[in-house]
């Protein structure tokens, strides 16, 4: 089969899919062949006098019963597979998913956060529970290879979140898409789920836990790159010169010139520390020429802000 099957749900859902394909193909072909043969057999030339059949009650009843029976099966199969995707096993590992325009963030029980650049890392053959939360508009968390999809809704604090769960059956990398239109960069809101063998995952996770405690002691300075992903910068700005929704941040340096629009007027400024700080906290005051004022102001601690600026200048 050409569809990638990589979770415990995939096989069952594909069987239902194939059942409906079979039924559909049968009726489509049968009725089409019937219609085309009629057109040839009963053309005016071959059959000058039509037979006036007005209808047939038995036939009407038969072709009411046929779809009732077949669709009952379709409903039943669809339901029993669906309900499995809603019942989360108790031993599932909880990884919180946050979404925003246009980034993903995955938060692990140990406090580790991974952004769109790193993706979601999970162990094979273990259930993973994913509460889904959006910070702005409706997104939809979709992993086609696992056959799961759930809308990521913005909810008030404390409200019940939408959730999804899966158990991967194959080691490898699979695409995670945003499936609900969420603005200009909707098609770029893609990341990966990395399925690792259990032992490898344990090692990775332990390493991450250790790094996390050492990162807490070095003042978070080394975290600029990570913040760039986690704060969602990565959703709009490239670091390699590619033009996206926002300007690329490649080659940013103190003292270089930049054309910006301030209150509707074009002017040239020199990049300095205060410009960079302002670009993070009040990004739309001096707008880089040729871009739309859509960047939300960033809530950052002084430490985080400096870490980000250091990272940006290193690009």
């Amino acid at each position, binding site marked *: 089969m050409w569809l990638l099957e990589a979770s415990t749900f995939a096989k069952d859902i594909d069987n239902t899919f194939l059942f409906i394909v079979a039924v559909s193909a049968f009726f*489509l072909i049968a009725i089409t062949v019937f219609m085309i043969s009629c057109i040839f057999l009963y053309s005016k030339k071959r059959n000058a006098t039509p037979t006036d059949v007005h209808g047939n009650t038995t036939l009407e009843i038969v*072709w009411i019963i046929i779809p009732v029976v077949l669709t009952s099966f379709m409903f039943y199969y669809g339901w029993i597979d669906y309900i499995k995707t809603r019942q989360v096993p108790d031993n599932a590992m909880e990884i919180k998913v946050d979404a925003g325009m246009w980034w993903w963030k995955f938060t692990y029980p140990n406090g580790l956060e991974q952004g769109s650049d790193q993706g979601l890392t999970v162990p094979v053959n273990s259930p993973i529970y994913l509460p889904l939360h959006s910070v702005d508009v409706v997104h939809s968390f979709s992993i086609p290879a696992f056959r799961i999809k759930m809308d990521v809704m913005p909810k008030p604090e404390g409200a019940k979140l939408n959730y999804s769960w899966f158990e991967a059956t194959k080691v490898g990398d699979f695409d995670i898409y945003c499936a609900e239109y969420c603005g200009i960069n909707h098609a770029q809101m893609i990341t990966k789920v990395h399925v690792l063998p259990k032992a490898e995952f344990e090692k990775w996770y332990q390493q991450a836990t250790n790094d996390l405690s050492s990162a807490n002691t070095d003042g978070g300075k080394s975290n600029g790159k990570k913040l760039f992903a986690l704060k969602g910068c990565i959703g709009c700005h490239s670091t390699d010169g590619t033009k996206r929704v926002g300007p690329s941040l490649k080659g940013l340096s103190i003292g270089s010139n930049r054309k910006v629009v301030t209150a509707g007027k074009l002017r040239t400024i020199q990049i300095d520390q205060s410009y960079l700080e302002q670009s993070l906290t009040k990004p739309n005051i001096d707008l880089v020429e040729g871009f739309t004022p859509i960047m939300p102001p960033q809530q950052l601690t002084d430490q985080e802000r400096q870490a980000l600026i250091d990272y940006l200048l290193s690009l």
Partner: protein
Amino acid sequence: MSKKKASQATESNNFFNQHTGKWTTFPMSWLTSTDHKRIGLMYGYSMFFFFGLAALIGLIIKLQKMYPASSGWEIIPPSLYGSFFTLHGVIMIFLFILPGASAVLGNFLLPLQLGAKDVAFPRVNLLSFWLYLGGAILAVVGILLGAADTGWTFTPPYSVTTKTISIFGFSFDSVSWMLVAAFILGWGTILTGINFIVTIHRMRCKGMTLFRMPLFSWTLYATSWIQVLATPVVGITLLMLAIERVMPVGFFDPAKGGDPILYQHLFWIYSHPAVYIMILPTMGLVSEILPTYCQRPIFGYKSIALSSCALAIFGYFIWAHHMFTTGMSDFANAVFSLLTFLVAIPTAIKVFNWSATLYKASISFQPALLFAIAYVFNFMIGGLTGMFLGSLSTSIHLHDTEFIVAHFHYTMFGGAAFGLIAGTLHYFPKMFGRIYSKGSAYAAFVLMFVGFHATYVPMFIMGMNGLPRRYHTYPDIPLFSNMQFASTIGSWILVSGIMLLLFTLVRGILKGEVTTERNPWNSSTLEWQTATPPTLFNFEQDMEVTRDPYDYPAFRLEQKKSKAGGKK
């Protein structure tokens, strides 16, 4: 001798020749006409114009996806892509297929099929058209100036928060304009619905019982009830959204204490029944076309008539199958999945009865019949792929992917639009008193049919593999890039077919061979007994119906009698 002269006089007295004065008054004689036939044609001209326009926009959308962006391909930037698919969707849905067959052919044919002089409220009918025209202009101007990018579904909170684009220094709230435009269009729809319901109940000629009505009138009846009962819901919902955009009120935006799911419920309570507004009248057209070219009674007249009403009723109870992934309760999902499958029953009844009508018929082949058969074929694919979307587990996998887009186009384009075209070709001589070029219509059909499948089959395959819809570009996987490429080539064939078809129609209207033959396809229903084109008040005398609409044996006897009478 004198009798012949009189009939000639009435035939030159057709509705085209009424009220035409100097050239300055000519446009006004149409824009202020309360004649249902003129109103129908005006809807037709504007709708086919919008159809061509939105098809060209669709062409650009497809071209954008010909190659993945990673290969450096970009026809339109991401910021405009959102506006393009919104423009395509809004025009195709609100300005073309939603008024659809019921506005063009429904207006033209309903009084003719019932043996009436006009609809019940001719002035209200004209008001409906003005509302349509006003709403259409507002929508097009709004979207062209402000580039709304919400999609035709206006899903909040994105539709609440999306920025307005400023052009030449003044900012223009395109989304609110579109919402108000849709609200106005809705009023036109509601008034047409009321008009048709009253016409059907009060204006039938002598002897025309409900079960002697032609099937197109039956579908208009079912459609009208949906229009009257469902449209107000979306009207007020869109207005609430517009209010939320311009005032600090929170209906749907959670940041203001609103509920985005509430919007989706209210929107789909209308928009699901609305797909039956789009498709039902074209089902009626196919039910007219098949018996005519088969020259035999339609198989299962009552089943087809009642299944139209069943579709209209069931259509109300299945809206939430658009919302399986929003986090509704499992119980709600199960109920809506089960109810969705109910639709399969009336749909299957229609398809089986249509194909049975071809059995032992005496078929004369015409472009209209070809389009009608293609309609049944395309619609079957549309309907059968709908089962994947009714079944919960498969539906969730396919939701919001290209599969949905393909499914929707199979029902609404391969179905509804093909049906509208079939109907237009079928009634073309009656409407215009001219004959279009058959060769050119067949050529257009081949291009459209081949192009249609080439465009949308690849989208089914991409959707099965999970590619989401409304993507400006896509991951560079061979499967996706090959299918997108095929789909783009398909769209070129499809749009050239559409353009050829529009050319065929326009050329037929302007230069087609003139005909005054009343019943060129030898059809048994009442509308073919009027002059071609019909006179101002449709019939020369009060009509009386003495048989069922598709009673071809009785119809043939009538013809024999009148021939014998003519010889004497």
